[in-house]
């Protein structure tokens, strides 16, 4: 068994040595150096922080949606909300607001 394994290994070694090869070209080296260049640091928000933000957004969405039947329109409270909390918050809340406006509870 060992002799067979050694013979197979020798067969592969000879076949691989017979493969044609040449040094990498300058353009290939440049490609490789560019491809392996470290990418700039990118901040990834921790999962806990993302979850907390989502929970707060849902609470804010529910609170604002409850105000819709009181006569407020989306335009009236979107602008001050955006200026206070920033655009990202509005983007979280917006789908909830749209849904609330689409089916307002008239007997509130």
């Amino acid at each position, binding site marked *: *068994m060992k002799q*067979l*394994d050694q*013979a*197979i*290994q*020798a*067969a*592969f*070694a*000879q*076949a*691989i*040595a*017979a*493969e*044609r*090869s040449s*040094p*990498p070209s300058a353009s*290939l*080296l*440049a*490609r*490789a*150096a560019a*491809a*392996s*260049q*470290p990418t700039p640091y990118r901040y990834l928000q921790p999962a806990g922080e993302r979850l907390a933000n989502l929970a707060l957004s849902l609470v804010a969405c529910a609170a604002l949606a409850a105000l819709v039947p009181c006569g407020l329109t989306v335009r009236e409270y979107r602008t001050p909300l955006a200026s206070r909390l920033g655009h990202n918050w509005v983007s979280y809340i917006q789908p909830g607001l749209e849904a609330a406006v689409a089916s307002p509870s008239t007997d509130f």
Partner: protein
Amino acid sequence: MQNFDGAELRHLALTGDTVTRQQAFSKLWDGFYRRLVHFARGWPAIPNDERADAATEALLAAFAALASYDPTQAFSAWLFGVARHKFQDAARHHHQRQWRQPPLPDDEAEKGAALAWHDDFPERSAAAELAGQCARAIAGLSGRDRRIAQLRFHEELNASQIGQALGLPAATVRWRIAAIRRQIQTQLELLHETA
């Protein structure tokens, strides 16, 4: 064959300047280019004149992805795993490009690749006769078995590492290695009987 320092290569590629990274790539090229060109023969769908390009692309992809290499693992197992994905893509791409031509039956494609494998073999001395007979027997293996045989007998990877590189269960690799040994042994016996 597991004497390549992948951890050092990874360190050089990730922390070095442009010249250092180029030197690191040259080192990777010197260590693995021929081995990958030969490994590509395990995909008969890749034409002979495109194997060198496929090996080059595999080396570039591996070098760019060195950050994902775990230095506690065998470097060659990781590298051949990257190469396997590139060669599968190349084989698929070539197959799609040639869709208008009637495809070769699998057996003929395998036979063509096997002959090419044997034709490239250099002139042998009498001392290497057994290795030459093994080469003829290896040429008769299927593409998958040739990939497994190279990783086992030349790269000296174990069944788990081969499974990781080729996307196969370790038990399947062990079973195929035993079958490959039997097949080559049978071929050698046939050659001796006819000689």
